[in-house]
């Protein structure tokens, strides 16, 4: 079948007009001065946690592997500063779980390990092994190990690579800045995936609120000498939340719908976040694994919002202090954006691989509407990108009707938050749906 490039996005259902608040989109990223200490939790990915391969007292250099796992769905962790392993201890993560972490005290030199050298790749298995060795996980927030995602099962007919540059969450601009500042690395990564997976259609999906990114990508591609770049095209997407949700993005870019309970490969697509591509490109060029991350620090409680490139494992408080500290008492601190981010109990937590923003809300912005009765306005239903009925899901979750929840396809919900955002009665729809999903999962285990 002939693959065509869409000139405008395909229609998708629902969505919400969330505020953009991309205050930091035009501000160049800054490097955080080397922190005195980093804390590297053993789980920074989806899958079983890693075990440390270093011991207390060891000297480590940047890019040196400090933890790994034998499990397939996993990603190794590397030292992000040079120094000494001062402790291996349990820390609390954003989700409240206890996890072993390797603590590295800096020697202030930021010395790079001699192990860091460009990988030699001659075949697809070698490419996937290199991706695994780079410690790359889905940097859009999911944290799914990249080499697992790129290993397409033999029975799936994948023909399209979609690069996610939608960045539909309010405040967050780290992908935007990455696209502007690391354009070359991005295309190095994209071309590698395109080449080794043998794909002939690459679509860079960019929301229309980032015209600078669209212009930069188009200019880069038009000036490119690579013949295969003819198969890479930029697609301007509608600036509508949740445009960057994988299933929504696939439909916008290809018109295909991922069947319920299936993966993008079932719709013939591989989706990668743009920052993931940039890190892959860096690794292929230099051999430097995933050791640093660009974070958007913003929100009504932050004094001078900016994008900061930080070593993974840096304490959040250190980064916030670097951004001038708080201008108002923070009431809520979010890892991620205000729509899907996780609210954390303290700013004394380390940055992990899949973090892309720290958003601090002041009292006023964190204010929550007191829930009142559902007025059946239907805004949750018309807004649901998965075409579900959130109000019914909520009622059935509260009533603990598991069979009804299943028949309403509760597991298809991706918790994007559109329903709760839209609800004029302030009902905690997503929260109820999460409980409902947990009930369905628990029943499945019985």
């Amino acid at each position, binding site marked *: 079948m002939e693959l065509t490039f869409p000139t405008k996005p395909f229609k998708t259902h629902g969505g919400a007009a969330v505020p953009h608040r991309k205050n930091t989109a035009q501000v160049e990223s800054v490097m955080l001065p080397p922190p005195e200490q980093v804390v590297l939790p053993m789980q920074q990915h989806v899958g079983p946690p890693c075990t440390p391969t270093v011991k207390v007292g060891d000297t480590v250099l940047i890019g040196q592997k400090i933890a790994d796992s034998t499990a397939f769905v996993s990603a190794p962790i590397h030292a992000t500063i040079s120094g000494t392993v001062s402790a291996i201890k349990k820390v609390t993560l954003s989700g409240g779980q206890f996890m072993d972490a390797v603590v590295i005290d800096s020697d202030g030199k930021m010395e790079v390990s001699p192990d860091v050298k460009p990988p030699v790749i001659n075949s697809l298995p070698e490419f996937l092994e290199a991706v695994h060795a780079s410690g790359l996980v889905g940097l859009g927030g999911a944290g799914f190990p990249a080499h697992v995602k790129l290993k397409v099962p033999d029975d799936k007919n994948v023909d399209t690579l979609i690069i996610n540059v939608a960045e539909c969450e309010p405040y967050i601009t780290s992908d935007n800045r990455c696209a502007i500042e690391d354009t070359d690395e991005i295309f190095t990564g994209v071309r590698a995936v395109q080449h080794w997976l043998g794909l002939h259609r690459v679509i860079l999906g960019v929301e229309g609120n980032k015209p600078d990114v669209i212009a930069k990508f188009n200019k880069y591609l038009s000036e490119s000498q690579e013949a295969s770049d003819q198969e890479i095209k930029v697609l301007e997407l509608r600036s509508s939340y949740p445009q960057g949700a994988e299933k929504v993005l696939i439909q916008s870019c290809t018109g*295909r719908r991922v069947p319920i309970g299936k993966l993008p490969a079932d719709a013939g697509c591989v989706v990668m976040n743009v920052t993931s591509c940039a890190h892959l490109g860096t690794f292929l060029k230099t051999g430097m694994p995933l050791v640093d991350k660009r974070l958007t620090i913003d929100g009504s409680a932050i004094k001078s919002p900016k994008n900061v490139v930080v070593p993974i494992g840096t304490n959040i408080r250190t980064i916030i202090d670097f951004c001038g500290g708080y201008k108002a008492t*923070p009431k*809520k601190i979010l890892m991620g954006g*205000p*729509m*899907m981010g996780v609210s954390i109990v303290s700013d004394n937590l380390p940055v992990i691989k899949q973090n892309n923003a720290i958003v601090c809300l002041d009292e006023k912005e964190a204010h929550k509407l007191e829930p009142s009765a*559902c007025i059946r306005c239907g805004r949750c239903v018309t807004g649901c990108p998965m075409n579900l009925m959130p109000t019914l899901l909520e009622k059935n979750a509260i009533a603990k009707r598991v069979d009804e929840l299943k028949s309403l396809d509760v597991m298809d919900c991706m918790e994007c*938050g559109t329903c709760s955002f839209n609800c004029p009665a302030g009902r905690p729809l997503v929260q109820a749906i999460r409980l409902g999903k947990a009930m369905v999962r628990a029943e499945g285990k019985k």
Partner: protein
Amino acid sequence: MEEKLVVSSSPHIRSGATTRKIMLDVILALVPAAIVSVIVFGPRALMIMAVTILSCVLSEYICRRVMKRENTIGDLSAVVTGLLLAFNLPVSIHPLMAAFGGMIAIVVVKQMFGGIGQNFVNPALTARIILMNSFPTPMTTWTQPRSYLGDAVTTASPLGLLKQGASADQLPSLMNMFVGNTAGCLGETCALALILGGIYLVVRKVISPVIPLCYIGTAAVLSLCMGRNVWIDLLSGGLMLGAIFMATDYATSPITLKGQVIFAIGCGVITMLIRNFGSLPEGVSYSIVVMNILVPLIDSATRPVAFGKEPVKDEAQR
């Protein structure tokens, strides 16, 4: 950090829409029709509106107190019900009857079923029907427009005249019906004001235009098929008021687009059947209430298909 942080489930921001703001928008949308009713029927119209609103709000307040539930008069939905009820009454109605109607709407129809969002029929319309059956004569005594300036003169409504077999030239002119200079309930006479209110609600995204358009469209087509005067059918009686403000009530209309189309077409069909074949001149209230009762069935028959559950199509057409 001394202050404790709030930890909650995402999302952490809201659109800013609230029930109260939605109700306020509906009230604003009703203001033009209210002004016209005062011009056409005199200060007494204002008094009737005040009585029904007061009766509704008071009933809601007392009811919630007695039931030991949180007070909900702040959401302004009782004000909307009161105003809509007044719009469905003739100006000559006794204030006590109007107050009784408000009480029925709130206590019996709304609060006994659980309050806002839980009532299965439209409170104002059901109250009108109960008043109609309890006090048939006062409920169908119409006053000549602007006759409050001299002696109040009673007359028949345009649809009543039509039922009695009047010819078109015995009816008020279409222009008079469009601007509201005709006999009828307080808020139903001026199509212009109601349409303006409807446009406001659509622009503010409080209602979707689907229900009003399908309802009015169905009525127009049927009127044509039945050989009636389409313009008189559209501009007289409660069609505009019903289609724009009553059939679009959230609690008693289907939640999905497909359901709303079915619902609105049903309303249009029943309205025209009653107008043409029934012994009553007007059928808007009954048609909407009957369709209200069918909403749970329509809703379960038009449940949306979850993303990815539909049969697989490749490279779907745009």
